[in-house]
């Protein structure tokens, strides 16, 4: 084992900022990261063991205990539950004889829960040794476990047909479906990649590129909506030894999967956009930060990069432009939602725990390795190519005045056609529901758990930065769903799991609010609990990053728009009930010491 770890560390030139890669490869080689391995790393990287351990403990795909030869991660998102996750979970437990969180005694199979893996349009889904298995059924689970027991390799488990589009390529061979339902400028097939780099860029100065981006008024597609042109300009003006271009492909917002589809179907467009950004800000290094859930795309994306290098769309003096050097590497995360926050992403890129940084300084001044850095969403880079191709003016004809261009939506839940839709901004929710075949709709979650839950009386609201802003996640809930217990509680538990724990507000208030919600659902709530939830949630605003600031949104927005659902559970005759249950509280201790609980003693 020690030799393998040594080789891995040497492969990354004993560079401690590459700790993530070192840990990922070690985890994959042995199924866990042993204390021996940690010892070797800490000596060779000249770090304390605790520094290595704290990075390991932060990411949920890392483990210091064996996770099994076949580590099965079953998605735990609300939509997975809606489409039969419970039965699939039970089937896994029945077939393996173990519970989730455990490994079979022979060390063969491990069962684990994991947060949304970006497959909401094909749930229930699981990841087994980096391969994605979609649309699972109890029957299929039986097959998979029997195959594993008989010694099949993971590739051999995928005996069903591959997904659509490029998922069928030999380098991908994924069961995943892209489910593209509507195409616009990004997903359309009429752009031949490389055209802008080789034909437009040689005639444009970097400043002219930024001017076009600014003129297009495009705002960041990740959800926060910062004007992209300004970001690039600030970064170009910042002084540093080196400027970096980072593509944020950590889409962890439950219900979002459009970046997976863009990277599957149009990766060249994203990489070309990164190169254009590099040209604009004067940077020669790009990094695609890809969530570990999409590890199955590694080989495919690396082939695409190689192809682009061969065509001189990456590399030195790109497209014959003297001094335009740019190359891209892929950095994987290891399972942490908060790494989608740009400064947490930077920390992770540097091999550390993905805890958000204090701002300012902003990444455009001090980003990756303290150098000026732009971080943009996958979709933003892809869009930038079309803007530079056709000009900023052309771009403004799409969408609305304050939200120009198109937006790629990930739509899932109770609808006939879940999948990816590229629409012009300015769409309203009703249009969207008609488009996806959703009827009898109770609610729509716009922008994922950190966004808003709206009901039918708000379905005439418009998608755009000035009204209903979204990074692309839209989840439809039919009338049959129990919003509070199936959706809101699931979202709160997601935030509890994914809080990095750095700010006490986010670490604690998420727990406090979820506990209060559970108490209300048990019928122990009083009117004051609703008021407490509303007023206490304000504490979360003091959190350092967006995760903490929005972690109360599932409760706040459902309380605002679906108050009647809460009120059904509220005890009207009481003004105080903490829901404390003495009988339940003494049960375990009495059992252990061997006595019968006695409640009439005092």
């Amino acid at each position: 084992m020690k030799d393998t770890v040594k080789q891995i560390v040497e492969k990354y030139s004993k560079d401690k900022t590459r700790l993530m890669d070192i840990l990922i490869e070690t985890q994959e080689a042995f199924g866990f990261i042993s204390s021996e391995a940690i010892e070797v790393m800490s000596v060779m990287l000249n770090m304390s063991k605790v520094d290595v351990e704290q990075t390991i403990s932060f990411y949920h795909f890392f483990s210091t205990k064996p996770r099994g030869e076949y580590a099965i991660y079953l998605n735990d998102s609300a939509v997975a539950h809606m489409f039969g996750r419970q039965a699939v979970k039970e089937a896994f437990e029945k077939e393996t004889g173990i519970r989730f969180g455990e490994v079979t005694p022979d060390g063969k199979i491990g069962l684990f829960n994991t947060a949304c893996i970006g497959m909401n349009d094909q749930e229930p889904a699981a990841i087994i040794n980096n391969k994605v298995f979609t649309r699972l059924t109890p029957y299929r689970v039986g097959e998979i476990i029997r195959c594993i027991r008989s010694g099949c390799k993971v590739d051999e488990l995928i005996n069903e047909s591959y997904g659509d589009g490029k998922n069928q390529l030999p380098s991908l061979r994924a069961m995943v479906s892209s489910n593209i339902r509507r195409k616009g400028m990004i997903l359309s097939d009429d752009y031949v990649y490389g055209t802008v780099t080789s034909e437009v860029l040689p005639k444009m100065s970097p400043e002219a590129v930024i001017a076009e981006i600014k003129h297009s008024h495009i705002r960041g597609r990740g959800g926060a909506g910062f004007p992209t042109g300004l970001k690039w300009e600030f970064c170009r003006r910042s002084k540093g030894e080196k400027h970096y271009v980072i593509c944020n492909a950590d889409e962890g917002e439950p219900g979002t999967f459009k970046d997976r589809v863009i990277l599957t179907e149009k990766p060249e467009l994203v990489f070309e956009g990164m190169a254009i950004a590099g040209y604009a800000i004067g940077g020669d290094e790009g990094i695609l930060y890809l969530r570990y859930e999409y590890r199955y795309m590694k080989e495919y994306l690396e082939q695409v990069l190689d192809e682009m290098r061969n065509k001189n769309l990456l590399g030195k003096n790109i497209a014959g432009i003297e001094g335009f050097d740019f190359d891209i590497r892929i950095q994987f995360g290891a399972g942490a939602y908060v790494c989608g926050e740009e400064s947490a992403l930077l920390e992770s890129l540097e091999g550390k725990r993905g805890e958000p940084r204090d701002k300012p300084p902003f990444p455009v001044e001090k980003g990756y390795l303290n150098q000026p850095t732009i971080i943009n969403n996958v979709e933003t880079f892809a869009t930038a190519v079309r803007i530079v191709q056709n000009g900023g003016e052309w771009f403004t004809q799409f969408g609305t005045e304050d939200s120009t261009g198109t937006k790629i939506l990930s739509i899932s839940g109770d609808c006939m056609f879940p999948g990816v839709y590229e629409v012009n901004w300015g769409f309203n929710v009703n249009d969207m529901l008609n488009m996806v075949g959703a009827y009898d709709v109770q609610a729509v979650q716009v922008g994922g758990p950190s966004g808003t839950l709206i009901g039918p009386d708000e379905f005439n609201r418009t998608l755009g930065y000035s009204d209903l802003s979204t990074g692309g996640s839209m989840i439809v809930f039919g009338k049959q769903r129990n919003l509070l217990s199936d959706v809101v509680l699931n979202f709160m538990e997601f935030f509890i799991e994914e809080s990095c724990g750095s700010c006490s507000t986010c670490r604690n208030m998420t727990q406090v609010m979820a506990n209060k919600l559970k108490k209300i659902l048990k019928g122990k709530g009083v009117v004051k609990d609703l008021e407490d939830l509303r007023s206490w949630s304000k504490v979360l605003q003091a959190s350092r990053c967006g995760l903490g600031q929005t972690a109360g949104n599932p409760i706040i927005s459902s309380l605002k728009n679906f108050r009647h659902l809460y009120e059904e559970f509220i005890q009207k005759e009481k003004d105080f009930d903490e829901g404390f249950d003495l009988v339940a509280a003494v049960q375990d201790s009495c059992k252990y010491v061997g006595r019968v609980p006695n409640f009439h003693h005092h």
Partner: protein
Amino acid sequence: MSKPVIATTSLAGCFGCHMSILDIDERILQLIELVEFNKSPVDDIKTFTKPVDIGIIEGGCCNSENVEVLKSFRKNCKILISLGECAIMGGLPALRNGIPIEECLHEAYIGGPTVGLNKMGIMPNDDELPMLLDKVYPCHEIVKIDYFLPGCPPRADLIWDALVALITGDPMKLPYEVVKFD
């Protein structure tokens, strides 16, 4: 008007908060001019003998007896104050909250290094004993608490000021030094 009546108790606490009450020093004489004590370790009255205005609770709830006493305070007192870290958050005793109750009991009576004399591995299970709760609860998770006085222990001046404010109805002075905790 008759003097306001005060009751106090220490649940799962260390009596440090009560010591802090005594730390008001000679003002204790002034206090007994202002108020009358009922059930409290201060005067050793064991049960409530009349309705009480202000109940002061030290400590959280770690067993069934704590819960009983706390509920009787709620029943007999108009106003309840959680006094100190343990009453408010569980405090030091709540360190066991992350450990299963079975492990705690095993460590205390069977496996711990200082258990030498309990050779037969006897667990305290007499019917007379209070029953341990699965975890230590702060008081406001059992009954409604009206006011919280933080600190470990809360400073004597804070206790004094709070009582005076409650009795006189004047607003309480809360200078920065009183509300900062690090």
